[in-house]
Each structure stands twice: as C-alpha cells, then as structure tokens.
C-alpha cells in the first residue's frame, strides 16, 4: 500500500457533491497526468490528495495511512502541492521565494541551516535558475516564473509532487520546457509527480500514466495508449477526434475531427 491512494472518495463544497465514490491509486515513482473537461473536479481531487479539503466520505492514504490522521507538517514534508494560482509577494527575489519551500523543515525560531541552503541550491540548479537567484520574480518571463514555483516545491523535498495546471498560460515551447523538467525530476530524483494538464497529446508524450476524469468520476486510467481512445474522448469531452501515433515519439496524438 505504498504511494498516494484515494479510496471511495466523495468530495463536496457545502452540500454540492463534486467528486463521488472515486477510487484511484497513483503509481509511485511515475509521472501521472490528470485530464478532463473544465469543472469536472480535477483541482478538487488534487486538493483532497494534498489534504487541503476533508472528504465527505472515503479517505486518502499516503503509504497506507489516512492523510487526515497525519500532522500538517508531517504531510508537508512528504507531499507538496503547487496550486493553480500561487501568489508571489511583491518585490521578492527568486532565491527568497524558493527558500519559502523550506517552511515545513524549519523550526519556529530556527535560522537558515546548511541543509536548507543545500536544498535551495539543488532546487535552483535543477530548474536552471541558479544565475537568476538574485532577480526579482516579477522581472521573469512566464515560463521562468513557473520554474521558480517548481523550484519552491523542489526545495520542499517531498517524495510526492502535485501540480495543478502548471503549463496553462504558457506558450508551447515553455509548456514543453516545464513538462520536460517534470519528467527529468521524476527520472533523476525518483519523485512521484501528479499533474493536471489540458493538452492531451503533450500529456501522452510526457506522462507515464493518465487519469481521464469527467463529472467527478474516473472514466479511464492507464498508459496513454489505453486511455486516449476516440471513445473515451467522446465520453469525457464530447469531442470527436482521431487518435494517431505521434510521428516523433509514437505516443498517441489527438487530432480533433
């Protein structure tokens, strides 16, 4: 029972049920992409997996333990979430923002330790930001800024990393840059990555495992080839599409009909 699992999860805002009876095992050590139409509950599921909302029924387990039975800080050392719209404080530099990822590891009044510095340096290096550390975040391009947030999550040194639409708002080269970075982090550092994505073909290219959602349920999960079928796309998005092999990578390429 290792890794992150959702068992019979029902999630609601007030009484409006958004996700119902969802069971899902996120494969450890892999890149998983969650796909589905707007409003189908992807962000809600991600928040529940990160312990930000309490399920109405069912539970989320981290290595077999109910995540709500674990202390907040203990969870924050094992699982990081990059929300869809995090806020960069005015005037903050790249290095200082990334440093905030160390919060769950620092004592109440403790100073900045050598371990903190090592984690920050590694996070900056992995995201190619070392030379930009002293720059204000506000001066960066959208793609660089997204790398800063990923670096913050890396400095948190969690084995699980959840990201909500990290590529939305980015142009295609920057989307690819971010996804390649995530996959590299997975391959080189063994982190389990779960990310919500919108571009189906890019998801197929960069993720090992896809989860296709619609209306608060999981319609299909498995390898890109298993999940991205014309039938599933029609069911999830009402989209009539052809699925062909990507001429570059051989992964499924969705061509709207």
């Amino acid at each position, binding site marked *: 029972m290792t890794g992150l699992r959702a068992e019979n999860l029902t999630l609601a805002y007030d009484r409006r049920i958004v996700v119902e009876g969802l069971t899902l095992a996120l494969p450890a050590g892999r890149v998983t992409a969650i796909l589905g139409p707007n409003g189908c509950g992807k962000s809600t599921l991600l928040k529940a997996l990160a312990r930000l909302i309490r399920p109405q029924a069912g539970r989320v387990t981290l290595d077999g333990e109910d995540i709500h039975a674990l202390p907040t800080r203990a969870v924050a050392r094992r699982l990081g979430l990059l929300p869809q719209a995090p806020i960069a*404080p005015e005037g903050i530099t790249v290095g200082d923002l990334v440093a905030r990822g160390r*919060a769950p590891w620092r004592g109440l009044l403790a100073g900045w330790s050598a371990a903190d510095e090592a984690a920050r340096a590694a996070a900056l290096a992995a995201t190619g930001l070392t030379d930009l550390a002293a720059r204000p975040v506000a001066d960066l391009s959208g793609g660089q800024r997204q790398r800063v947030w990923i670096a913050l999550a890396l400095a948190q040194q969690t084995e699980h990393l959840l990201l909500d639409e990290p590529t939305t708002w980015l142009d295609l080269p920057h989307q690819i840059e971010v996804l390649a970075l995530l996959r590299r982090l997975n391959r080189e550092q063994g982190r389990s990555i779960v990310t919500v994505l919108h571009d189906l073909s890019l998801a197929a290219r960069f993720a090992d495992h896809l989860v296709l959602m619609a209306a608060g349920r999981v319609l299909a999960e498995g390898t890109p080839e298993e999940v991205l079928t014309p039938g599933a796309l029609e069911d999830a998005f009402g989209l009539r599409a052809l699925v062909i092999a990507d001429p570059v990578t051989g992964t499924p390429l969705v061509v709207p009909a």
Partner: protein
Amino acid sequence: MTGLHARTALTLAALAAALAGAALLALMVGTRPLAPAQAWAALVQPDAADPAHVVLRQLRLPRLAAGLVAGAALGMAGVLMQAVTRNPLAEPGLLGVNAGASFAVVLGAFLFGVNDSAALSALAFPGAALAAAAVFVLGGAGRGGAGPVRLTLAGAALTALLMSLVGALVLVRTEALEVWRFWVVGSLADAGSRPLAMMAMVALAGGLLALALGAALDALALGEEAARSLGARTGWVRAGTLAAVTALCGAAVSLAGPVAFLGLMAPHLARALVGPGVRPMLLAAGLIGPLVLLLADVAGRVALPPGEVRVGVMTALLGGPVFILVARRMRLGAPA
C-alpha cells in the same frame, strides 16, 4: 527569509542608530532645551534639586518610553495587518481597534464624566481589544473561516458602526466632545500618567508572538492553498496574528491615542529597505515606527512655540509628504 541577509542586518543597525539619535533629541528638545551633557547627567546622576533633571526624568523620559513602545507597536502591527490580509493598504485601524478605543473613551466621558488622561488610557485598551475580538468573530464566523476579505469587511463595518455611535454621543454632550477631540488626535504629552510598564509588557508579548508567526505568515503570503501545503495551519496563524495585532494596537492606542498613518507608512518603508520577508519587515518596521514617531514628537514641540503640536498631527503632516517622496523615488508599490 533565509535568515538575515547581511544587507538587512546593516540596514537594521543603521535604523537602530538613527533611533538612538532620535531618542537623544527627544530628551534634549523642548520648551526647556537641555544640552547633551545635561541630559546625560540627568540620566546617570539625577539631582532632584535641578529643575532640568526633573523635567527630563518626569516628563521627557516617560514620553520617550511611550513613543518607543507605541511607535514600535504600530509599525509591527501594520506589517502583520498587511501580511494577514494580503492588502497593501491594510493598517492597524482596519481591525476596528481605534474605533473601539474611541468608543470606550467617549462612553466613559459620556456616562461618568471621565476626563483625566490615566483613566482614558485605561478605557482605551479594553475598548480596542473588544472591538478586535468582535471583528475576528464576525469576520470568521461561519463556514470558510476568517478570510482576508471577510476580516477587512467586518473591520470596516464595525468601525463605521462605532464611529457613528461616537458621533452621536459627542453631539449629545459637549464635555464628551471636548475629551474626545483632544484624545483622538494622538499625543505623547500625557505619557507620564499612562500605564507605561503594563502596556510595554503587552506590546512586548504581541511583538514576540508576531516574530514567532513570521515564517507562517511568509507561507500565507503565497496564498491559502500554497501556505497549507507548506504545512502552515492557516486558521491558527490568522487567530494568532490578530491576537498579536490586538495586543500591539491596544498598547499603542492606550499610550498615545489613535496615531494615524504610522501603521500604514512603516511597513511600506520597511519593505523597501529589507524586502518582503515578514520577520525582517517586523524588525525594520519596529524601528521605523518609533523613529518617525519620536521625530514627529520632537518637531511638534518646536513647531509653534510656546505651545506644542500633538504628535498625531505631526506624524501625518510630516510623514505624509516624506512618504510620498520616498514612494516616488523607490517606486514603492510598483511591481519591481
């Protein structure tokens, strides 16, 4: 954030030195000016027969202490308010603290004819604390907890309500108006009669709590969800922050009355000097607040001899233009 940068440490040291200079001025300047040597002698070898020494020890020293405590408290409270509401225009008064103190003072004057400075000071603190508690309950009651917008709205609503009650009471009774119109400007002149030691302890407790919450507030600055995924228990962080703001503002308003503008200005100057980390900002604003307040108080003593201008007037009068100048030069508030 990463501990103190060397530059930050230097800045704080420079601010502390400037504050020491302002404190010395505050001891020397007044209707009876003292030379530095005289002031020093009065401190270390007081002579009860020397009127200059008596002035210094009984008037200027308490006044200086009240200015240090109230200024530091307002500066730090402003940092906390801006951090917890994520609103650069937030200031300590927003939580209804000053309105609560005003209401308590006017009510005391109205019902019991209270008009001496010590009693007003004793009324101001519970008034401030009750108002802050009410805002927290109103803004945080129900589902969702105390979000920044709800807190701000609850504070604005309670302030409007209390100030309309104050307006009604002072209209009915002129004695209450007389008491209130002097109190509300904010002054350090009556410091000797105010509960200095107690309010210093209250402010110290608030300041320590604020520093302890610094890291959690740094996380909260990134947004609610990011903060919680970084392990911050945001509900508790807000509650603790408001407790600290209440202690700080309550102490300040009790010692100096509702000094306007300082709690808004100090955090912005602090951010421009030491960056957006909450703990360095608290330290810097805790030095900038008393620096500005003491300088304004000294200026008020020499502005219109033989009388003096109350510090609440001087802070806004001098602070306003200086703040605008600095804001333009350092591009405060502009996306860097």
